[in-house]
């Protein structure tokens, strides 16, 4: 198993199928990750970021979610071909996830300590005492006093709950961490603490991380690589510097344009939102999914599949009219 094949997602397609309609959540997503790197998945709400993470972990709600095609190789093995038993072994142990909403991610009737110990016990062969020891250790690692082990989630503040969620995700020292908007629900001051903590622990354990967020500031702080998701597709992918310094896709440009800037600009004191709305995932447009909102759209954008091209070394883009804004 070569290093660069640590995680490889190939042409992943996930649909949510209900009797009324099919939602095309993820449409042909491919990317690779090397060990120890952090990839930022950036995109608007509903772009399919969380679905990608849940597909990797194999916890898509089925029904209605259905993997329509694609392969996910984790440490060289296609996880869709693994038995449920093997997946149980990987989940929570080698691949873990930090959930978006810490307010609802903890079970209200189980003590916080037990919720951490539980995941350890599931993967250490059922050693209760060791699991409890580890849980106490993790609580202290995330800055929560050990005596609060016996308390329930309702006795914790939002920031503390999120730290518990992180402790659960990191208790088994995963090799792949899926962080789904780990700081979105938090105050800015606590955000910084949580990010710092994640960074520290990741470096210590050489954890590969996929960080899902729509906060470009967090991406700049945390990531080595960035993939921009739009309507279930990666439309631009490259190293942090490439994407931040040379954004080429009109959508990526739009994202940066929508950020408030502190710089004084003589005639530019307003935000620039991207015109229009993301496409309805039940009826995606033909051709490029961004074409209805794109200022540079041409006739050929509206037909067929848009190829992925490597525009600069290590910088891929799914667009016929890359724009360089400087």
């Amino acid at each position, binding site marked *: 198993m070569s290093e660069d094949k640590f995680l490889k997602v190939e042409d992943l397609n996930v649909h949510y199928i209900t009797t009324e309609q099919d939602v095309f959540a993820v449409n042909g997503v491919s990317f690779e990750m090397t060990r120890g790197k952090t990839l930022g998945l950036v995109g608007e709400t509903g772009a399919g970021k969380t679905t990608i993470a*849940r597909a990797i*972990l194999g*916890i898509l*709600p089925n*029904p209605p979610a259905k993997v329509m095609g694609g392969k996910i190789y984790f440490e060289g093995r296609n996880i869709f071909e693994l038995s449920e038993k093997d*997946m*149980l*072994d*990987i*989940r*929570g*142990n080698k691949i*873990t*996830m930090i*959930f978006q*909403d810490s307010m*609802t*991610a*903890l*079970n*209200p*009737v*189980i*003590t916080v300590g037990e919720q951490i110990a*539980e*995941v350890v016990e*599931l*993967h250490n062969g059922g050693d209760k005492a060791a699991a409890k020891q580890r849980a106490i250790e993790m609580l202290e690692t995330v800055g929560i006093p050990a005596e609060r082990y016996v308390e*329930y989630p*309702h*006795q914790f503040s939002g920031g503390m709950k999120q730290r518990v*969620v992180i402790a*659960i995700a990191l208790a088994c020292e995963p090799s792949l961490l899926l962080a789904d908007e780990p700081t979105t629900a938090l105050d800015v001051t606590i955000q910084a603490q949580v990010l710092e903590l994640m960074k520290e622990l990741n470096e210590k354990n050489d954890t590969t991380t996929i960080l899902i967020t729509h906060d470009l500031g967090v991406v700049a702080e945390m990531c080595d690589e960035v993939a921009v998701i739009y309507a279930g597709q990666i439309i631009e992918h490259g190293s942090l510097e490439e994407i931040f310094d040379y954004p080429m896709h009109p959508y990526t440009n739009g994202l940066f344009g929508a950020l408030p800037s502190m710089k004084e600009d003589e005639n530019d004191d307003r935000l620039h939102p991207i015109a229009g709305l993301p496409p309805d995932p039940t009826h995606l447009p033909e051709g490029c999914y961004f074409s209805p909102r794109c200022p540079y759209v041409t006739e050929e954008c509206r037909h067929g599949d848009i190829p992925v091209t490597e525009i600069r070394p290590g910088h891929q883009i799914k667009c016929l009219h890359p724009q360089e804004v400087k």
Partner: protein
Amino acid sequence: MLRYVFRRLLMMIPVLLGVTIVIFTLMYIIPGDPAVAILGSQAEPWEYEALRETMGLNDPYIVRLLRYLAQVYTRFDLGTSYLSGVSITTELAGRIPHTLTLGFFSVIVSVFIGIPLGIQAATHAGTWRDWLPLTISLIGVSMPGFWLALMLVLAFSVKLGWLPAYGMGGLKYWVLPVLSGAFGGLANLAKQTRSSMLDVLYSDYIVMARAKGMPERDVIYKHALPNALIPIITIMGSTFARMLGGGMLTETIFSIPGVGYYMVKSVNNRDYPAVQGSVLLLSIVFTFVMLLTDIVMAFVDPRIKAQFASRAAKDQTKQAKPKGAAA
């Protein structure tokens, strides 16, 4: 927690007093004359009058009410039956075990069938394992218990001859009463379990439990069920309460000498003290069941427990304040 239980026990006093007054008043205003019921319709008018006088029936309402309250709450005496002259307390003490046995086993049966049925309906939502139990529940909820009882008797006693149709005896005498008593509650429980499990199964902490690599069985029984239990426990409490009230019909159909059967008989005979005593007894049992329900809930859900705790803490600070002011 102990303080809470104690407080709830104290709160039962006004409730029971209220029940006593209401039931006494109802019995007072309904038409019908106990004297006629006792002597029959052939007696002389002065005989009725004399009997009413000795029984104190000619006294004003308020005097009779106070006399009854004093008798019940100071001497714990429910009076004697107009009809048989036997002490009602003795009469009820012999009968309540039958009623409680019927209620208890009906609840046990409905819990042990209804909850698993509801769980599997929820976990297999949309498949036949969902709609089959749902259909059964719908039939169960819609069907009057006494009708089911009669049908069961028809099938298992009259046609098949497997089980006795009425009376008391060994274990097999309990099968049909418990079944007919349990079915309605079972259906209710299955429905409630299904819907509250469905609510819980899509919550984030269930996804989280799965993400931990927990086998689905444990996810359902360790993580989902305890959270779904709160409304289920409420239903269980009210199911038991319904067994007490509805037990009347079941007991009458199967000739079980329970409190319900006694109550029906007493109503027919205008045996006021007997009716009052029975209702009072069932109310006491009912309030205890409700208290038990609340305590069980507190043990299942730490948030409810915390409410009691914080209330107790508040009371303590309230009590502490005047002391502090005095110092």
